[in-house]
Each structure stands twice: as structure tokens, then as C-alpha cells.
């Protein structure tokens, strides 16, 4: 008989983040799970799993730290004060969503280690904020 297991990366981590973002932003900030950059509209995010570290595997529960990047893209063709304000407003809203909504589940603990801001020609006019995340989850 095959071992029963949960797809922890997908179900416990990434879909929880997608669901939390959907609760706050509805369809205005689609979150995709992808390895590569793909242009998806005016505003979107790409969630990418990088690695996981075991916390303790000697109990009946499996505890891991999952390291992910959450890349937020916002198209900014106007390039003015208002669009910069809007960009940072969305970044703060995402940050608050991570801390307020996603930790409702006591088994789900999230830390935003850092956010890097980039703005480069290769992003086709997008401003980009890369969230470096660590999710501690027990299953």
C-alpha cells in the first residue's frame, strides 16, 4: 500500500498563501506559482519555493521551515509620485496580509525576512518587490 502523504509545499504552504491573498485582494492581485517570470497583467505576483529545512523529525508531526520568494510586480507607465505611492501601498498591504491573515492558523507561522525593491528595463516597465519569506509549518 502506498504511503499516505500530503503535498506539503502545495497544500500547506503555497495554496495557503494564495488563499490568504485572494481573501484580501480578490482578483486584483493574482498569485501564480511559477519558476519563471511571465507577464500576467498590470499587477500580479509569482510565488516560488526555494528550499526547506527540517525543524524536528523525531516526533509524530513533521515540522519544516519553507523558504520562498514572493515577487510582486506592478506596471508603472506613469512614473510619477502617485504611481510610486500606489506601489508602496500595495507592498504594505501584502506585508500586512502576510502577518495579519496568514497567521490565523496556529500551525502556520510566516516571517518576511526582507523585501528588495527593483526597477529595471528587463521587467518591461514593472516595479518589482521581492519578498524573502520563511514559513514554519507543522503537519
Amino acid at each position, binding site marked *: 500500500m502506498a504511503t499516505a502523504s500530503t503535498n506539503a509545499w502545495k497544500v500547506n504552504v503555497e495554496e495557503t498563501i494564495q488563499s*490568504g491573498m*485572494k481573501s484580501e485582494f480578490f482578483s486584483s492581485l493574482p498569485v501564480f506559482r511559477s519558476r519563471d517570470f511571465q507577464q500576467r497583467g498590470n499587477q500580479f505576483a509569482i510565488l516560488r519555493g526555494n528550499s526547506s529545512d527540517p525543524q524536528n523529525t523525531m516526533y509524530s508531526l513533521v515540522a519544516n521551515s519553507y523558504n520562498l520568494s514572493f515577487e510582486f510586480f506592478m506596471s508603472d507607465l506613469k512614473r510619477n509620485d502617485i504611481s510610486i*505611492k500606489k506601489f508602496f501601498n500595495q507592498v*504594505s*498591504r501584502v506585508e500586512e496580509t502576510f502577518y*495579519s491573515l496568514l497567521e490565523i492558523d496556529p500551525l502556520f507561522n510566516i516571517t518576511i525576512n*526582507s523585501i528588495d*525593491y527593483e526597477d529595471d528595463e528587463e521587467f518591461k516597465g514593472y*516595479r518589482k518587490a521581492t519578498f524573502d519569506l520563511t514559513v514554519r509549518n507543522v503537519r
Partner: protein
Amino acid sequence: MAISYNNITYDKIMIPLRDKLRTEFKGALPVYFDSKDKEVGNKSLRIYPNSQTLQDKRTKSYINSYEIEMNYVINTYRSNEKALDEMYKDVTRIETILHQNSNGGSIPYFYAGMPTIEHNIDTDIPNAMVSKITVPVLYEEVHERFVRFVTSNDNFFVTSSGSFYIVRN
């Protein structure tokens, strides 16, 4: 229900910094926000954050250090001592302003250290001298906390749209 939040980087970090500098220079030094240098007047100051790093996470708050980069640009058609002196003078003045306003008063931010300064950095603007000033800013944000509403049969309340039903803690 949408969460309540502050536009931390813009309203709590960038605006107070810009206002302090505008008050000091009174229009003699245009200050603007952008990720790229622009040609604005004879001299200008561009402000933009590079990154933020978590310093401490508490039960209901988090403290981040925001690395703010400022590019001071002065136009000059030749590399003369007069322009150089003006650049040094203005950069020192900016440094002094940061030192004297290291606490945010009603806004809970403060500069975590004195700025790092690099002179004569490369830029796309022709005939200009540029100094880069980088200052770390600490800010603590208190966030909301919610809990799931657990039913007697150990389920969670979930709305029809698939969103969490959330109740204030």
C-alpha cells in the same frame, strides 16, 4: 473584510524624510521620489528605498530596517572646485539634518545609524556630479491579529466565496 494597514514605506519613511529636507533647503534643492535619476534644475535629490530587512518580529508588531538611497546631483559643465565644494557642503548639510532629526516624534521611526556617503558615482546624467547617501531607517508597525472561528464540530467558518470568516482576537 479588508484588513487595515499603513503605507509604511511611503507615508512613514519617505514622506517624513522628504519633508525634513524640503523644510531645510526651502526650494533650493528639489527633492523627488524615483528609482532613476532625472534632470531637475541645477541640483536635485532623488530618494528611493533599496530594500527592507526584518529586525525583530513580535506577537503584534514587526520592526524593519529600511535602506533608503538618496542621490544628490549637481550639474556642472566642467569639473571645477566650486561645484565640488557645493556638493560637499550640501551633502554635509543633509547628513547634519539626518543626525538632528534622528527621531520621528509622533511617527515611531528613527535613523538607525549615520548615513554612508559615496562621492562621484556614475550616472546616466551628462555633465553632472553625483553623491550617493544611504541611510538605514528603523520603523515598528503594529499589525492586526485575527483568529479563526472554530465550530463545535471542529470546522472553520468559511464564506461562500472561499474566503476565511475572520473574527477579531
